């Protein structure tokens, strides 16, 4: 055994070196890049607030009246319903959007089966109602923004996820658990 080790030492050292270089230059950067990208970096329990990069986030169910559909609206898909949530964001008592150098964000709705919906085209009555109450429809605007989407009747929304990106290809996923 000792003889084998002595004879194979150079090969073993080279192998260990190769593995170390691979981990340092490929595996670790890949793992670090995916951290907070596919799995949420921050999970906020239902009803809780979270201070992220100095900005206080709060998510809640939005009590929106059933919209009156107009002729210019797309028809309501069969076996679906509208779900609505909203975020309030502030910093030092003033409406704010994103801190920490994040430049873009988008929200999606996730159900218990892992399906994901993006807010789509909304009936005009919904847009009018949201605008009238000061809710923005995009999350890069400071203050409150609404997340409204058409989902199938069998969907139970379990979380709203907010993806943020910055100019240096950085990404961060935040998960807000919906109130039961």
């Amino acid at each position, binding site marked *: 055994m000792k003889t084998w080790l002595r004879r194979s030492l150079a090969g073993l050292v080279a192998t260990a070196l190769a593995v170390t270089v691979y981990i340092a230059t490929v595996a670790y950067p890949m793992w670090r890049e995916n951290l907070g990208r596919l799995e949420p970096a921050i999970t906020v329990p239902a009803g809780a607030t979270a201070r992220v990069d100095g900005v206080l986030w709060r998510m809640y169910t939005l009590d929106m009246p059933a919209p009156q559909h107009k002729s210019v609206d797309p028809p309501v898909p069969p076996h679906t319903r509208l779900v609505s949530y909203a975020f309030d964001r502030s910093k030092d008592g003033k409406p704010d959007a994103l801190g920490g150098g994040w430049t873009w964000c988008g929200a999606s709705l996730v159900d218990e089966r892992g399906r994901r919906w993006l807010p789509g085209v909304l009936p005009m009555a919904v847009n009018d109602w949201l605008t009238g109450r000061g809710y923005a429809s995009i999350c890069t605007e400071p203050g409150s923004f609404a997340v409204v989407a058409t989902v199938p009747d*069998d*969907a139970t929304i379990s979380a709203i996820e907010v993806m943020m990106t910055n100019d240096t290809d950085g990404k961060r996923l935040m998960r807000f658990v919906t109130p039961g």
Partner: protein
Amino acid sequence: MCIVNRTRTTVQAMLCALLLIGAAVLYGKIPQRVDSFAPILVRGTAPQKVVGENVAVTVHQVISTPEIRVKSFADSTLSKSQLTKGRWIVVDASYETVHDSATVGLQLVADSRNIDRESLSLYPSGQPGVEARTAAVFDVPEPPKSLNLLAVNLPNGYRELMQGSVDSQLVIAIPLDMVQQRASVEIVDGRIAP
């Protein structure tokens, strides 16, 4: 002893050479990046619902016509007539996704031609389990002898942020006896007028 050593060295060298050749052959057979990301074909026949990894399409009816009249919404008094020297093939289909929102791209293969959809209206997103109806219009130069509708998830910034691009492409054969001939078709807000 010397002969034994020489034989052992020769066997070792041959094994090494075989290992290297095997590795080179295997490396050459690894799919290229674009091959790895190419969609997996899922075949079906209209009017059955065809479901792929994250796209599902049902072709309800197919109309061949020389004229389409396009309106933005039902109450609009503005109707734009469009004629073609060939035939408009209007595919009345509903689409949805399976687990993630994505824009569903449609293309028609008429005989050997791949024909892009006319941009008469916005390409709305497909949503999981939310069936959206659309009239996809294709300008075909001559009456086709075979028709296939292709459906695939178009690249979507958010979707690519969330996960990789492994996906499927639907290839939906449209039987020619399903194609109705009409003098004109009215399309309102991207759908065939009732």
